[in-house]
């Protein structure tokens, strides 16, 4: 029987969700529900849904994360930035690039961490710009450390 939206909500509406366990207990059909939760009115639940989307393989995972990456609430974009590191599809790079340019420092911080795990020419260029140009000292340092992981 397909999982319902209420069941997904119940799994995520806990203080400390066990994401790996939840991810193994649901199938790709969960992404429709996660998209609904990302668009819902509860930022906490939306951020949990966004994060779970990155842990469940499926063709619609990127769509959920695109919604999350465009969310008005930074906490949801942060969850998206963290979740993208789990995706293994090319579309993720454009999302990371968008989040690296986010106005919110927390979103950029998570995007830098995700970029470090997904080396590419586009991300390298953006990180190099951040290394010298980001207004936050800790992000300039984090961008530099991420570039080291890219190698020569």
């Amino acid at each position: 029987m397909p999982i319902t939206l209420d069941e997904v909500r119940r799994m995520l509406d806990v203080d400390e969700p066990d994401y790996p366990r939840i991810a193994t207990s649901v199938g790709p059909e969960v992404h429709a529900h996660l998209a609904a939760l990302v668009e819902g009115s509860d930022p906490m639940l939306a951020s949990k849904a966004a994060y779970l989307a990155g842990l469940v393989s499926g063709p619609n995972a990127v769509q959920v994360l695109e919604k999350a990456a465009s969310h008005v609430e930074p906490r949801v974009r942060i969850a998206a930035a963290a979740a993208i590191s789990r995706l293994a599809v090319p579309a993720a790079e454009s999302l990371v690039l968008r989040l690296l340019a986010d106005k919110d420092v927390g979103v950029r911080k998570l995007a830098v961490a995700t970029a470090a795990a997904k080396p590419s020419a586009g991300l390298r260029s953006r990180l190099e710009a951040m290394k010298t140009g980001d207004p936050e000292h800790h992000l300039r340092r984090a961008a530099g450390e991420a570039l080291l992981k890219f190698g020569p």
Partner: protein
Amino acid sequence: MTWSGWEDLGGVITDGPTVASWGANRLDCFAKGQDNHMWHRWWDGGAWRGWEDLGGIIDDPPAAVSWGPNRIDCFARGMDNALWHKWWDGSAWRGWESLGGVITSGPGAASWAANRLDVFAKGQDNHMWHKWWNGSQWSGWEDLGGVIDGTPAAVSWGPDRIDCFARGMDNSMWHKWWWLVPTVTVHFKVLTTPTVPINTMVDSMRDVYASAGINVRVGSTETLNLPALNDVDVGACLMGQTTAEQNTLFANRNNVGMNDVAVYFVRSTVPPFNGCAAHPAGRPSAVVAQGATRWTLGHEVGHVLGLAHVNNNDRLMTGNGTANITNPPPDLVATEVATMVASPLTVDV
């Protein structure tokens, strides 16, 4: 069982008496004499002895208490309005010793253990003030408030318990008592103000913890400007496992004692949790996210005190989400209370 008649014990006393006993069939009575000295008469088990002149120049009735066999401590207000102390140490009278202060009544005294003394008196502000001997030194004066008239009385029925009585300005008898309460002291480090006000979280936590007889004390609140840690990586949030970011965050421990819990209010955790109680050894801590519920604070501190999740939405430690708690305030069961009280972070205060 019957009352005796009145026995005339003589003397010419102008205030008091007061009485203490350091053992069965032993009585020590003290009173102010016409010469403003403190006088002593005692029953030694076979006969009344005294009167004995213990000197001093006292005002108001003295107070006397014994913390154990062959020990008596007497207190009186001197003509200089300071508190004075004289004591029998088992072989001789010692003092008078001035304990300072400016008191406007005679003292009351109690002892709840060997080598422990608690003395009370009215201050110039009509509050009741308290000074105590902890076995090695005298404390300063502690303001216990109230608006009292006359000399307060104090007694202890056992360890860690004192009951004080005083006449109020309304001529009612007023009662104030002290006892040790298992207490968890939490310190708040605020990086982001949570959606549910911190005071609401504290009140909710206190509601639950009080049902277990545990007091929650807020030791301090500090704002931290740490943008790099406001969305903190907590990894899998497993007890005993912490990330570099958690370790860095939890190093901010201004005012946090060794047995206190530091709670860090952050914007979010990565992954997204309402809170996370994983902390490094020796640094009891938890993070609480902006979107936490009113119960998350008590829930996370519960983890810090050693509690695990349960599958019951009537209980604080539900693993099904504190947002889904039914029948609030949620419960703590006896085994959980025992664990919390046994925690070194729960201290009798």
